[in-house]
């Protein structure tokens, strides 16, 4: 069993304060996703856990053992890098065997482990190829294989899918989720800026912004009960509509947020009304952009085809209990 506990972690580069008082408790076997806009410190946090970066203050403990000063290779972690970071001069087999060889593991044991990992990742017929002779998805699998053979307690992924094309990304996303099911006792920490990856893969999501943890929770918790304006806007696609001034005042809040899928068209006298700017038909759904006098258009999501033309006036209301109210500081007002 392997828990990861981060207490009051701070990371500074000179005067730049990258991570601020991060506290996290990660249970054994969890799939955790760090998500946030670029520059929020999510990759730095991952690198601190791996030991590739030192921390300025606080503690990181794996299985109750403080690992602040433990070398990366001794922390029981394995990491998959964004660029795969395969050793270009070694074939697939040697890429995976390298770490085991350094551990001083006997050759026959290395062979068993590497072949088992290759089997699991469908790499058996590529073992003697150099990385440059592999496709992007295969390279990614080798990188994962190199991590698996180490039999780590904690698996770290640093934006592993961002170099792949869209179709392959979906496929690898599924493969990584399946891998998680095969390794039930292994904790996985996954960094991404793609909230779809975060929503689909995570047991729990950690949302970061400017080096501060904004909210930790299951994907649905974040979607249904965001604890700040930032999380409300960051999770969900299309972005949550935010309304201010008199639009919000009628609900007794500084800002109200309502998701595109939680807006209903009413015959007239809805909560808000505005002119259709344009509408996008995606087949199963359509997005209608309304100008209700806010800086940004309000987006309304309807199933099926949208019957509206640009210029039509549409009146909408939020579905009951699907309205998020925030005060002037961005904190939610609870019902």
């Amino acid at each position, binding site marked *: 069993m392997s828990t990861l506990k981060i207490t009051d972690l701070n990371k500074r580069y000179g005067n730049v304060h990258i991570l601020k008082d991060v506290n996290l408790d990660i249970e054994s076997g969890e799939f955790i996703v760090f998500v946030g806009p670029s520059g929020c410190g999510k990759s730095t946090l991952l690198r601190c856990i*791996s*030991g*590739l970066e030192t921390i300025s203050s606080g503690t990181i403990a794996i299985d109750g053992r403080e690992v602040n000063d433990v*070398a*990366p*290779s*001794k922390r029981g*972690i*394995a*990491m998959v*890098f*964004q*660029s795969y*970071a*395969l*050793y*270009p*001069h*070694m074939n697939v087999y040697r890429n995976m065997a*390298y*770490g085991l060889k*350094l*551990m001083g593991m006997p050759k026959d044991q290395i062979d068993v482990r590497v072949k088992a990992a290759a089997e699991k990742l469908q790499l058996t017929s590529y073992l003697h190829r150099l990385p440059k002779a592999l496709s992007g998805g295969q390279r990614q699998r080798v990188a994962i294989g*190199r991590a698996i053979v*180490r039999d780590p307690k904690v698996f770290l992924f640093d934006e592993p899918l961002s170099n792949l094309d869209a179709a392959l990304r979906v496929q690898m996303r599924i493969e990584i989720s399946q891998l998680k099911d095969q390794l039930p006792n292994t904790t996985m920490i996954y960094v991404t800026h793609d909230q779809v990856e975060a929503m689909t893969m995570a047991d729990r999501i950690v949302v970061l912004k400017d080096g501060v943890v904004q909210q930790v929770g299951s994907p649905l918790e974040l979607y249904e009960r965001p604890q700040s304006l930032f999380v409300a806007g960051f999770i969900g696609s299309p972005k949550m509509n935010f309304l201010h001034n008199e639009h919000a005042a009628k609900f007794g809040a500084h800002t109200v947020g309502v998701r595109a899928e939680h807006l209903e068209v009413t015959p007239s006298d809805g909560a808000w009304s505005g002119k259709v700017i344009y509408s996008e038909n995606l087949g199963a759904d359509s997005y209608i952009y309304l100008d209700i006098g806010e800086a940004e258009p309000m987006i309304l999501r309807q199933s099926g085809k949208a019957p509206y033309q640009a210029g039509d006036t549409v009146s909408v209301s939020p579905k009951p209990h699907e309205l998020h109210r925030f005060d002037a500081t961005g904190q939610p007002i609870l019902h």
Partner: protein
Amino acid sequence: MLQQILYAGLMVAIAIAIFIGYFWGANWLLDRMLVTAPAMGQAASTRRDRLRTRIRPWLFIAPALIFLTVYLVYPVFETLRLSLFDRLGQNFVWFRNYEWAFGDPVFWQSALNNLGWLLIVPALCVAFGLLVAVLADRVWWGGVAKTLIFMPMAISFVGASVIWRFVYAYRAEDQDQIGILNAIVTAFGGEPQAWLQIPFLNSFLLMVILIWIQTGFAMVILSAALRGIPQETIEAARIDGANEVQIFFTIMIPQIAGTILVVWTTITIIVLKVFDIVYAMTNGEFDTQVLANLMYRWTFISGDTGRGSAIAIILMIAVLPVMIWNIRRARMAEATH
């Protein structure tokens, strides 16, 4: 003085003007002579178009080809011819000059010395260059150190030799030692030595000069190659449990192996041609002779163009495999990019 500078500038301007005139004029003439007009019909005009595109590259590389022929290809064949003639280039003597060379102890001595240069200089240049390239990135004064190490590259071999003559200089024991090496030796209570007259050691001391000059070259190229290594592969190795030394030898060196070979062969070619340093320091005395200097002595001091040319041809044949290999590698590198 000013007049000379102006004159030189004028010559440069004229030369450039001639070449611009040549390229422009030749191009114009080609377009003019193979002009295509709507009246000539499809087939004829296509034929002319094709002919034009085929001739144009030749027009542009012609000057370079001509100069290469005059200054490179012709001398090779002339040297080959001279090596088969007697000392004045009058009577055909078959391979007698080569027979002489392979039976001459001084020739073998020179060849052996060349071999020593060949093994030691590139190896030490690459080793030191690599060491400096790796270490200089870790200290704040690394940039200054690299600049200082690179500077000898700008000094000519003869200039460097003059500098090092002072390093190795020897005075009789009762006089003040002006050479820094002897100054150090005497400061520690040792006897001053005539360094350049001690066989084996003196050859090595001459090699040091070339190493001093070429380490900067190796360092700059290898430093660039090291920067090209993806940082993430090094981090991955660190997570895999490799220490600094293991990372250096099993992750970094293999990734820059191609560059190391190129640097090695480039220095090898320079070493095979080494002449100036030996000429300026010992002139081949005290068992320091090398083939290039031997060739020079036979051709220009003894006036025997036959023997000199034979040595030149042997030297060329020795360099050839390295050259071909180097060019092939360069082509392969181009093909993969």
